[in-house]
């Protein structure tokens, strides 16, 4: 049954990666990367149970932290209205 959860998480990751590649706006990409990050956290938690080694849950925690810091960093350096070219207007 954990296999079902892992499969569902993998499917979601595929969808998020496609959105990150298609992009349109930079914000779409940030959103997709963020979703991918939380899904990786869940994937690692599920894999920890699948392999019977819950030690690796620490990594899931570290992931959650880094994912958040990453999103904040992207926004901090991207600033407001800084996009050039077609990235922001594309609808």
């Amino acid at each position, binding site marked *: 049954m954990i296999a079902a*959860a892992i499969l569902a998480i993998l499917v979601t990751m595929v969808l998020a990666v496609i959105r990150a590649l298609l992009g349109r706006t930079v914000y779409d990409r940030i959103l997709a990367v*963020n979703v991918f990050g939380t899904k990786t956290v869940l994937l690692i938690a599920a894999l920890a149970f699948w392999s019977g080694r819950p030690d690796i849950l620490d990594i899931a925690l570290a992931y959650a932290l880094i994912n958040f810091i990453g999103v904040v960093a992207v926004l901090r350096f991207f600033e407001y209205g800084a996009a050039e070219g077609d990235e922001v207007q594309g609808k």
Partner: protein
Amino acid sequence: MSALLIDLLSWVLIVVGGAFGVIGGIGLLRLPDFFSRIHAASLTESMCAPCIIAGLMLQSGMTLVTVKLVFLVIFLFLTSPTAAHVLAKAAIHGGLDPGALRDADAERRG
């Protein structure tokens, strides 16, 4: 009996969480503009992660693993909506119009 019940409940939670995840992913991919996508992604996100982790907690029982999972879910519950909020705010400042889709729709209908 209660062991079976807990097992059953845990599987239900995991499957529901997985379903929320996939629905959020489809929404992220298929919805027409950024603000509807962030809606799909973050709303289902905050259902998916706690459900799956709660299911795993029921699997592990009262151990250190559960404590770690509790930390994980608290952390995700704090940061995930915050990230979505900050992102949406930055997008509005960055010049994305939340009403663009509605306006286009109204125009098409005349």
